[in-house]
Each structure stands twice: as structure tokens, then as C-alpha cells.
């Protein structure tokens, strides 16, 4: 058994840390969460010489050890806790040759913790273009470390890096900065009180919650007495530390790094002038959005249709092949369609993350954030909320996961809370069938189809609801959080397709395994509720046969009638009857009530549920539409689906929080049931009131 040791990959954002991780571990990696929080934990195994294996942990990107976000706090908490099973034997600090100065700040901090530290200088392939020369030997000497100059794009330098990792025990652990020089008097006092402690570590422990504050510091008793220093005094010392470190770095780089500005090619400036132009920047962004929409709605419909029909025939096959009975029914009508209901979202989610990851890898996303920040801020959102709101048109689940890089908690929370208003793809089938039913097939001004305009209006309505509720939440929520916003404008890069591929696979996997479990569970519960019932349910066949003795109907018609009778008397049918008084003012009957309940698993279940209820043998939209058109309201004798009840349904689906999986994700991301419950109550209330108003107005 080869012995393993721990390697931690640390670095600023945008240094290509993830590419280095991917190169070191290949597909030998697993992504999870840190216990109790939603920061992604990526780890993998790297094979070194002579059968030695290293456990590699890819820590979240951070600018320094003074954490100001949840992600950054993970880094410092690990590095201060020697007893953590992931505590690194060696730290690998990844830097970008073009931003070496800034990246080295973190390096000096890590090295000062007394952990053996290797410096990786990435993006060596850009040195020529940018006319950069660096004296590696001199730099190694000055920083007292070993350096690997690599290019993850061209896969160069990794053998040397692996050798350095293997021989980590030979690395010097001399600190770069004498901590006492920050404030001699203060640090002397500290040293006298804790003679056995590393002084820089102590200092970090003391100052942690100046910026963030969630660190468990039980292991160091008596530290609180040093809190007597006022917060702003500590901040001043932190500022001093940063300046001291930069002085050291500037001195070192002056001797070792040369940038010939005259010969550097400046692609960034040219691209920025176009992509961030006050007019063309927005036009281009709109074009990119259109492309993404096209992919999500048009291109992914082909694999989705294929998945749909495959699962339909799989269910059919299971029913015909397995011995008849409850268990087979559960598989064929509960589990297989349930699985299909998860898998069918894979194409959209994969496309979405494909584009998002390209936009992020290329550096364009930061420009979008820049362009949109001012607009979004008016509504209590951040420029960084744009991505989730776009993603929400496919599915709110990945969209809510994409809010993680918003550092301001209030802005992030508002984004999470309003994202489910955007028109997700599950609403689309519902909209399509209702619009076809109640909106006349006419043209406006001779060109625009009234039905298409209505559909577009529904999308705008979704965005509008999200923006307006964000604005209101901004006024209502009493959360004090720093309104501070800073975003790095990284260099433009051609995306590495290996990275894009891994992101798509990982995100899709986490959707299928995470949200998928819940969707599957709900589908099984719905199936049970629709397949069993009290009293008359169990004599359905006899009762329906007796009722139809005089009429001559075919065997098929009889069976569909029995199915409809069963549904009406099943548990879910009773539930529908139970809520009927509540939905009647909206213009619905108990059958639509059932569809509303079952829509809670996923909105698009609406169509399928109505198909069963109206005893149509298949899901073909046209037949359901005809059946729905023929339904009459028992009281008025007029068609049940008229303009008033149709508009009421459209509004209800636009606003209601009907998605169990979204609630589960919100719970996971906010770490509390409070927010998903509020979301459920308030969104459903808005839906109910607007639907009620619309029906009563148009009736």
C-alpha cells in the first residue's frame, strides 16, 4: 500500500488553478460540499513516481488569507487547523505570470504559515506574446522556494511540478515577512503571552472575524484579551501587513521580472473597447443571450424528444414484460416516468452549463457583470445576478446554484428568492396548451401572431415579476451586509475544452444525483396517491361496467372510463375534491385542482395529469386540447376553459412556486427552511390573488 500525503492547491481566482487540478488528477476527482455549507469541495488523486499517490484538494479561489466570503473562509479554516484530515503536507500556490505581483501576496501568506510551499507560475505560453522574461533561479532564491513554470494550456511543466511535489520535504519553511515588523510592540506582547505559538498564525486567528468571523477558535484560549484592540486598529494593522508584503514583493520582482511593455501585444484593450462599449457592448450581450436561448429551446428539443419517447416505450416494455402486479405498475408508471422526468432535463442543463462555462473561461462573464451592475443594482441585485436570471429560463435549479459567486449575502439571497419567477422550461408546455385553447389564432397588424405575442408576454412577465419582487425585497429585508463590490477583469482566454467538458459533466451529475432524488421520490408518491384509494376506488371496474350496461361502447372506451373513475376516487382525486372550494373562485374544477397538486413535482406534469383525468389514452397535445375545449363548467354550462379561466391559469403558473426540487435547492443554498417556506407562501399567494383577480375581472 503506497502511502499518501495531502496536497492543497491554493491560488487567486483566474489563475487557471482548476486547469492545473484537472491536469494533475485527470478524471480522478470527486466534487462534494464541505459539511454544513455549500462551498464546493473538489478533491482527487495524483499519481507520482514510484507508485506514490498524492491526495489533491482544490481549495476555493481566494485573494488572501483575510477571508471575506464563505468560500475564502474555507481556505483559512483548513490552513489553521493542523488536526483536519485534509491539512496539507505541502501547499501548491498557483499564480498567473501576467498577474504575478498580485498573486504573490497570497503566496507569501501561505509560506509564512510554516507549510512547505511550492510556487507554480502558470500561463507560461503567454510570456512571449506579452514580452515577459523571468529569472526563475533568482526568484527561487529570493522567495526561498521551488518554482514550477508551467502551461496548463500546452500541458508543459507538469512532470517537473510532480517531482517538486514528491520531494516536498526538502522545501524551506522560512517566512517571507517577519510578522513582528508589522507592529513590534503589539507582536511582542503577543509572543510573551503565547510563547509556544507561531506568531503569524496567532495574528490570523485574532484578525479573522474582522472581515468575516465564523472561525472556531476554541483551541486558543486567552486570545480574546487581544481583541481589546479596536476593530479599526486591527484593520489598520492588516492594511499595514498588506503594504509590507507588497513592498517585499515589489523589491523581489524588480530584480527578477522584466516586462517589455513596448513589445507586448494588447488584445485585451481592443476587445474591451468593443465588448464593453456603452452601446455595442449591450448589443453583443443581447446576441449572446439569443444564442443561448436558441440552444436551450431549439437545439435541446431533439435529444429531449428522444429521451421522452425512449422512456415512454421503456415503461410500455416493462409493463408488458414483467409479471403483472402492483410492483410492475410502480416500476412502469411510477419509477420509469419519474426517472424520465429527471433525465429529460439533462440536455438543457448541459447546454446551459456549456455556455456559462465558456463565458466564464473566456473572461467575458466579468464584462457582462460590469455592463449590468448598475442596472441590476436599482433592484437590489448585483451585476452578478444576471447569470442566474438567464439560467432560470432553462431551470431554476442550476440557476440558483449559479448565485454562489455573489459575495454580498443580501444580493445573493434576493437573487435566489426571485429567480423562480423567470419562465423556466417546465412552464412552457403548460403555456403552450392553454394559449392554444383560449387565445384566438389571429394576427395583430397583419404580421404578429397573437398567440406568439402572448407567449412572449409570459416571458416578459416572468422577468418583470423577478425584477419587481427583487426591488420590494430590497426595501423589506433588513439584512446588513457590506455593499462592497469589486470584480477582477481577467484576460481574455480561449476556453480549454477539457475544463468546459468537466464542468458540464460535474454540474449535470450533481443535478441528476441531487435534485433527481427528490423528483423521483415525488413521482413515486404521486403514483401511489393516484393508484390507490378508499371505498369506491376498489370497485371501479364493477361500478363503471354497471353504469355503462345499456350503452354500447368498445372495450377501449370502457377501460379509459374506468381509469378516469379510478382517478376521481383515488387519494389524489379526493385531495382534488377537497381543494375544489379553494380553486373554484379562480375558475377551476377539481380536475384542474389535481393537476395543480401534481404540478408540485414538476410543472409540466400538468399536461400529463389532465390527459389521464380527461381519460384520453395518450399524451398527444391535439387530442387533449380538443378534450379540454369540450369540458363544460357544471354550474354555468359554458366551456370550462374560456378566456377568463385560461388567463387565470396562465397567471397562476407564472407566479406560483410549484416546484419541489427548487425548494430543496433553495433550502440547500440558504441552509435553512425559512427562505424556501417564505418563497412558497408568498409566491403562491401572489399567484392566487392575481389569478383570482383575472378570473373575476374577465368572467
Amino acid at each position: 500500500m503506497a502511502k499518501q500525503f495531502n496536497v492543497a492547491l491554493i491560488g487567486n481566482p483566474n489563475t487557471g488553478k482548476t486547469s492545473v487540478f484537472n491536469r494533475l488528477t485527470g478524471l480522478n476527482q470527486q466534487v462534494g460540499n464541505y459539511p454544513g455549507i455549500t462551498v464546493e469541495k473538489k478533491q482527487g488523486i495524483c499519481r507520482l513516481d514510484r507508485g506514490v499517490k498524492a491526495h489533491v484538494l482544490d481549495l476555493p479561489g481566494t485573494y488572501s488569507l483575510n477571508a471575506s466570503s464563505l468560500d475564502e473562509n474555507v481556505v483559512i479554516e483548513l490552513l489553521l487547523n493542523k488536526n483536519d484530515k485534509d491539512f496539507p503536507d505541502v501547499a501548491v500556490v498557483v499564480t498567473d505570470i501576467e498577474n504575478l505581483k498580485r498573486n504573490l501576496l497570497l503566496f507569501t501568506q501561505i509560506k509564512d504559515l510554516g507549510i512547505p510551499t511550492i510556487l507554480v507560475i502558470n500561463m507560461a505560453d503567454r510570456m512571449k506574446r506579452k514580452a515577459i522574461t523571468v529569472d526563475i533561479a533568482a526568484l527561487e532564491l529570493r522567495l526561498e522556494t521551488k518554482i514550477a513554470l508551467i502551461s496548463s494550456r500546452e500541458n508543459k511543466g507538469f512532470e517537473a511540478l510532480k517531482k517538486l511535489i514528491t520531494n516536498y520535504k526538502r522545501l524551506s519553511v522560512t517566512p517571507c515577512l517577519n510578522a513582528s515588523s508589522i507592529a513590534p510592540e503589539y507582536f511582542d506582547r503577543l509572543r510573551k503571552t503565547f510563547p509556544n505559538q507561531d506568531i503569524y498564525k496567532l495574528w490570523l486567528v485574532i484578525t479573522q472575524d474582522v472581515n468575516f468571523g465564523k472561525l472556531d477558535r476554541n483551541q486558543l484560549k486567552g486570545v480574546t484579551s487581544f481583541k481589546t484592540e479596536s476593530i479599526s486598529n486591527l484593520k489598520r494593522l492588516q492594511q499595514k501587513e498588506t503594504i509590507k508584503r507588497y513592498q517585499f514583493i515589489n523589491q523581489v520582482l524588480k530584480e527578477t521580472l522584466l516586462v517589455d511593455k513596448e513589445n507586448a501585444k494588447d488584445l485585451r484593450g481592443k476587445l474591451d473597447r468593443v465588448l464593453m462599449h456603452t452601446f455595442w457592448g449591450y448589443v453583443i450581450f443581447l446576441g449572446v443571450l439569443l444564442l443561448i436561448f436558441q440552444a436551450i429551446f431549439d437545439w435541446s428539443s431533439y435529444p429531449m424528444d428522444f429521451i421522452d419517447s425512449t422512456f415512454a416505450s421503456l415503461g410500455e416494455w416493462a409493463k408488458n414484460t414483467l409479471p403483472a402486479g402492483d410492483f410492475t405498475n410502480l416500476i412502469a408508471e411510477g419509477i420509469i416516468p419519474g426517472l424520465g422526468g429527471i433525465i429529460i432535463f439533462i440536455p438543457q442543463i448541459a447546454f446551459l452549463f456549456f455556455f456559462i462555462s465558456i463565458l466564464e473561461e473566456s473572461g467575458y462573464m466579468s464584462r457582462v457583470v460590469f455592463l449590468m451592475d448598475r442596472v441590476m443594482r436599482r433592484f437590489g441585485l448585483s451585476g452578478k445576478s444576471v447569470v442566474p436570471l438567464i439560467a432560470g429560463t432553462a431551470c431554476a435549479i442550476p440557476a440558483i446554484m449559479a448565485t454562489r459567486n455573489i459575495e454580498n449575502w443580501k444580493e445573493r439571497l434576493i437573487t435566489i428568492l426571485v429567480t423562480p419567477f423567470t419562465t423556466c422550461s417546465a412552464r412552457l408546455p403548460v403555456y403552450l396548451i392553454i394559449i392554444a385553447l383560449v387565445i384566438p389564432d389571429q394576427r395583430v397588424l397583419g404580421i404578429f401572431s397573437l398567440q406568439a405575442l402572448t407567449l412572449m408576454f409570459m416571458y416578459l412577465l416572468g422577468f418583470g415579476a423577478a425584477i419587481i419582487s427583487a426591488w420590494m425585497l430590497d426595501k423589506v429585508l433588513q439584512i446588513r451586509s457590506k455593499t462592497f463590490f469589486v470584480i477582477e477583469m481577467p484576460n481574455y482566454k480561449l476556453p480549454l475544452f477539457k475544463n468546459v467538458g468537466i464542468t458540464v459533466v460535474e454540474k449535470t451529475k450533481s443535478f441528476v444525483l441531487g435534485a433527481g432524488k427528490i423528483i423521483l421520490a415525488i413521482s413515486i408518491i404521486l403514483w401511489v396517491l393516484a393508484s390507490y384509494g378508499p371505498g369506491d376506488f376498489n370497485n371501479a371496474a364493477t361500478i363503471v361496467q354497471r353504469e355503462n350496461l345499456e350503452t354500447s361502447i368498445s372495450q377501449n372506451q370502457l377501460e379509459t372510463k374506468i381509469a378516469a373513475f379510478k382517478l376521481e376516487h383515488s387519494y389524489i382525486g379526493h385531495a382534488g375534491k377537497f381543494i375544489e372550494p379553494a380553486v373554484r373562485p379562480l375558475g377551476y374544477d377539481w380536475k384542474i385542482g389535481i393537476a395543480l397538486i401534481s404540478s408540485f413535482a414538476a410543472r409540466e406534469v400538468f399536461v400529463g395529469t389532465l390527459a389521464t383525468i380527461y381519460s384520453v389514452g395518450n399524451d398527444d397535445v391535439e387530442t387533449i386540447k380538443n378534450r379540454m375545449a369540450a369540458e363544460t363548467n357544471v354550474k354555468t354550462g359554458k366551456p370550462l376553459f374560456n378566456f377568463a379561466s385560461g388567463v387565470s391559469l396562465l397567471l397562476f403558473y407564472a407566479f406560483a412556486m410549484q416546484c419541489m426540487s427548487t425548494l430543496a435547492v433553495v433550502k440547500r443554498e440558504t441552509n435553512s427552511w425559512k427562505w424556501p417556506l417564505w418563497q412558497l407562501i408568498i409566491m403562491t399567494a401572489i399567484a392566487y390573488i392575481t389569478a383570482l383577480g383575472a378570473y373575476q375581472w374577465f368572467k
Partner: protein
Amino acid sequence: MATIASLKQGQRGIIKEFSVDVVPLKLLEMGCLPGNEVALVQTAPFQDPMYLTVNGAHLAIRKETAAQIEIEIIKQDLSTSLNI
């Protein structure tokens, strides 16, 4: 009093001391240090946010933060400012 927020496109300035109580440490860590040269590359509509280069780093901050950082504007003739 000149601050980063009063910079015009292409103009440069030297950062003076700023208060740790209003300007977060993060900005300092990203390279925005007293004594460093800062240049305004571009702004979004309404001059907000502002896209800066400072100490070799490219970053964007909101105008309200920029207005907290005092600078001394570097006077320059027109010909050099056009090159930025």
C-alpha cells in the same frame, strides 16, 4: 478633493492614503495601494461601475467605493492621454 470617481477616461492619478474603515481590505489586496498609479480605462453608462488599472491589475469597482479613494491626478498633455 480628487478621488478615483473624478477621473476621466484615460486619466491617471496617484493613490493617497485612504481610511481602512471605509475602503475594504480586499481592494488593497487586489493591488489598490497608496502610492500606486491608477488609471481609468472605461466606465459603464452613468460612470458606474468604473474599470481601472492599478499596479498592473485590472479591476472594476462601483462609483461609491471609488469616491472614497483620494488621489492626486497626474497632469498630462493631450498627446499622451490619447495613447491610453
